[in-house]
């Protein structure tokens, strides 16, 4: 821990300097003002590898204050190595902040690939780590072209892509990272959350901030904004189906479940992906 003590002595509160924080906050304000629009920002190198949440970390470090309570999850889990690592870092460079695993206690939640099961409130912010900010990347590799498509609302190819999947496979093959339309305007990438979590973005009380460090973009879904998955009238959007499976620990069948291979023979059990919610339920049920 010697190296981390050295951070406290030499760096600003929340590690990055105030000029950069201001820059990031301006990008956040712009993103909130234009829901679903990807705001380019001067993404800095963080002491983590690109693609490991550097966009989310820059947002968290820019908005956190000493009175905040932080929760960090990865794939729904508070204990996964990456979540622990980010939490440990933010805690050490931001003296005074609180750390929690309880969704209801946190003021800021940084997440990778999940939205917590418990509904969030208007005094809470969810910071999502984003690998691909561009929902249209699936149909168009060039950034110059996708920016034009957004500007002109030229979304025909995205609709065609979904339509072709239905024709060829009888199903849209997009599993997670399902494209959504925000405020009836921009098509947005909700980050690689499962389809299970997509409806939670719609008309939510909380603010959602999306940070893509490697691709240098910030975007947002403000509270009470319409967020709709791209879908056809005769082909409704469907969330993941666990075929009646229940969490082995808390017995829940209304949460997103992880499939776990127990033996080489392929025996499986299911567990809640949201570990802190699962723990809470077990406590309530006394199991």
């Amino acid at each position, binding site marked *: 821990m010697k190296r981390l003590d050295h951070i406290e002595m030499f760096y600003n509160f929340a590690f990055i300097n105030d000029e950069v924080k201001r820059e990031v906050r301006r990008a956040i304000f712009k993103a909130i003002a234009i829901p679903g629009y990807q705001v380019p920002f001067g993404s800095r190198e963080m002491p983590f590898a690109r693609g490991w949440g550097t966009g989310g970390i820059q947002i968290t470090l820019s908005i956190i204050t000493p009175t905040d309570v932080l929760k960090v999850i990865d794939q729904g889990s508070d204990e996964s190595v990456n979540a622990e690592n980010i939490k440990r870092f933010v805690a050490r460079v931001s003296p005074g902040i609180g750390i929690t695993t309880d969704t209801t206690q946190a003021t800021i939640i940084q997440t990778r690939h999940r939205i917590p099961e418990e509904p969030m409130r208007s005094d809470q912010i969810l910071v999502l780590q984003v690998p*691909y900010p561009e929902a249209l990347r699936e149909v168009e590799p060039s950034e110059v072209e996708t920016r034009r498509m957004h500007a002109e609302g030229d979304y025909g190819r995205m609709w065609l892509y979904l339509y072709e999947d239905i024709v060829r496979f009888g199903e849209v093959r997009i599993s997670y990272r399902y494209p959504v339309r925000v405020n009836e305007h921009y098509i947005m990438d909700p980050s690689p959350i499962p389809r299970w979590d997509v409806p939670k973005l719609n008309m939510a009380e909380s603010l959602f901030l999306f940070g893509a460090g490697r691709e240098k973009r910030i975007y947002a879904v403000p509270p009470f904004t319409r967020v709709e998955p791209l879908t056809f009238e005769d082909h409704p959007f469907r969330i993941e189906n666990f075929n009646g499976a229940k969490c082995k620990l808390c017995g829940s069948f209304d949460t997103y479940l992880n499939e776990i291979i127990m033996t080489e023979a392929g025996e499986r059990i299911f567990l809640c992906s949201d570990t802190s919610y699962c723990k809470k339920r077990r406590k309530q049920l006394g199991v």
Partner: protein
Amino acid sequence: MGYVAVSGGLEAIEQSNILFNIERYKGKSRPLEVSQVKEQLYLLVDRVMGEGGLYSPELASIAIIQSGGDTFEASLLLRAHRVTLSRLTTSLPITTERMRVIRRISSAFQEIPGGQILGPTTDYTIRLLQMELLISPEEEWTKYRALLEDANIRLKNIPRSFPKIVKILKEEGLIEEPENQASGEPPFDITKHSLTFPAPRSAILQSLARGETGGLLLLAYSSMRGYGNIHPTLGELRVGYVPLIIAHPHNGNPYTVGEIKVTEAEVISRYETAEGLPRFSMGYGACFGQNEIKAISMAILERCVRTKNPKAPAEDQEFVLSHIDGIESMGFCNHWKLPHYVDFQSDLDRLRKAQNKWRASKKPYEEA
């Protein structure tokens, strides 16, 4: 005034080689020992062995020192040395199921039979420079040496082999079996034959395994970022030691002659075909030493170049396989430093002719 054409090429070459070595030794530090490079810069050694196509940590360390740390040059030294060695025999196929694992993870499942083994990695370090190294490197060394003594006791509990995650999924029919070499048929040998396209899978795997790490990464990254995304999930990544087994020359019995350190990556890719039962497809990567970026990139590219209707550069088999060899690309890039004045003279001739023609066709005041 008389003119003397530049000559004395040989002497100039000798002097420049001396200067290169003086450049390396002009500081105050003691010369690097081969064992220091081999032990403490082992990831660099692994990389050079892979690109050089020769498994010898010792020789790779020499190459690294001799080249001043240039990975391209070191790999070339190693590959050139490889040519001087005779091929005594062909080893028997290795199964990585029996790998002596030092690291093994799957990002497809939270828990896996045998467990997620993080092993040695810098993945989760906070990237701050370790300034202590300037002042007291010995302290660091002593600290970790002491931990090593403890670790020896704990390591005994690690199982001897780990089940393959991809195999479990295959048995359930979720993953298609990639086209393999018919058993008994010898693999294509890229060191003896030049590639023709479409290349057999064994040739693809060999080319990628010897490919330059940065080159593989660049092409794989272009695919993951959006130029032909195959939607990879890392089914399993394992690093460890596998036995090198040969058939005894007299009685044909399998005989273990040593072991090599390898990294293996298996990526699971989105289903592709509309005909028949939909299944995930797979990409396979394996290389010498611990080089995870290379193994993962290789697995992604191996899957990319088998795409049915290639659209993106990384899916074009010929494009990928023709450009990923570090020794070929570095050599050709450096060749532009050779004199090209005869050719350039010819270029000048053409340009002057064209300029004269243009001038002749214009009125004097029109010239730009």
